[in-house]
């Protein structure tokens, strides 16, 4: 099973972390990346997309309902919406906040797990609450791969720690370590076997 989708979640300090991570990836990768960052419902969507665009070689594409996902493109959850994936496309909802958040990382991760199963890599970064832990659990239960920022290196440790404490995280590292691992997994030049997280001997 190769990686079909990468989902990334972050909260407090998440913007810097996600920029660091995405900035370290090459401009050609073999999967789309969908990002959910906690933010104020009134924050500017365009501003966040612009800032992320400035720190990555990948394309940052505007989010719209039913927009098909493309490899090497980044999609950022807009403020005050949940972002989900379905049938290889984006889906949105304005349902109630989950874990006090909209966008919720759990909502994104769980939909990714349900739709992409073993083809998902979920990455949870810094944050000050427990959003994402149940999404990590679901990704793992559906055969996907899970990563978390080493809580000791995170701006806020609570969120990655809650994920690690589920016992369902395959790979824990600082941002450079996560980026290096992610780059291997989604490297389009690598033979398919090398892109398979399972085949690379990751403890699962």
């Amino acid at each position: 099973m190769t990686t079909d989708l990468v989902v990334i979640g972050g909260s407090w300090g998440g913007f810097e972390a996600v920029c660091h991570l995405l900035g370290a990836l090459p401009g050609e990768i073999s999967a789309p990346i969908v990002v959910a960052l906690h933010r104020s419902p009134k924050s500017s969507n365009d501003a966040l997309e612009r800032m992320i665009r400035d720190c990555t070689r990948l394309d940052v594409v505007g989010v719209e309902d039913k927009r098909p996902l493309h490899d090497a493109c980044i999609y950022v959850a807009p403020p005050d919406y949940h972002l989900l994936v379905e049938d290889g496309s984006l889906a949105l909802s304005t349902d109630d906040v989950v874990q006090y958040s909209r966008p919720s990382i759990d909502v994104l991760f769980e939909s990714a797990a349900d739709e992409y199963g073993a083809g998902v890599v979920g990455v949870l970064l810094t944050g000050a609450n427990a959003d994402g832990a149940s999404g990590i659990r679901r990704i793992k239960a559906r055969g996907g791969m899970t990563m978390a920022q080493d809580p000791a290196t995170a701006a806020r440790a609570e969120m990655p720690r809650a994920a690690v404490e589920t016992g369902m995280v395959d790979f824990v590292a600082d941002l450079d370590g996560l980026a290096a691992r992610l780059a291997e997994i989604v490297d389009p030049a690598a033979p398919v076997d090398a892109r398979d997280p399972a085949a690379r001997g990751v403890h699962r």
Partner: protein
Amino acid sequence: MVAGAEDDRQPGAVHRSAPSRVPTEDLEIELLLEAVYRQYGFDFRQYARASIRRRLWKRVYAERLESLSGLQEKVLHDESCMERLLLDLSINVTSMFRDPTFFAAFRSQVVPLLRTYPFIRIWNAGCSTGEETYSLAILLTEVGLYDRTRIYATDINAAVLQEAAAGVFPLGKMREYTENYLAAGGSRSFSEYYLSRYDGAQFDRSLTDNIVFAQHNLVSDRSFNEFHVIVCRNVMIYFDKHLQDRVHTLFLESLSHFGVLALGHKESVRYSVAADRYEALDDHEKLYRRVR
């Protein structure tokens, strides 16, 4: 077949080589929605899977059940459970002047078009508990057009329509709504529009003078009038591609030539059958003008 299906429900059953989705769960969702349709006539079969899956599981847990199949059994035999499920599936959370920039754009770009009509018909499709409908009524009042406007506010769910008609919203929300209202270009004091009561903010009854609240199902009902504006924001995000196309066709049948379609900020006509029938009046605010 029956035995196999039961095996899959055993705790701890693992789909090791599962393709992307979990087939048993997909089947359970399909059967549950089919059961709801056949027994009660509510058709959620073409709702977007990712969201409806979350909503269904929420109801499973709230009923203290363990599976989607369990929910199907309960819904079939217990009408009150169906009523609760209907609320879960049909209520879209909204707020007054949600996305203030949209209402500001409506004021600056749609209102001038509306001034050219002697009588204005607006369809607020999927109005839910009415926050958007009242926002439109307030906006039209302030630009002096409300007296010659009729807003048809429709929803699939009769219970939310009753709430909408009552016009009582939580007091705790008024601060947020006031900020939204001002950011949307409101020209008065927002508190002029409601009275604080013990159970909530009662909005001015005169705001509903020209609103018709009516039950209408976008999935199965037909066009019922011709409108100058159709406002349907963040409703179709819950529909799958086929149902979205059906609703877009329904809107084309219901929109006058050069009429305006307003969608949610993250929606677009681009991926629909109606893509070439509209021109963007304001692409960012998702205001489209029918040109064909």
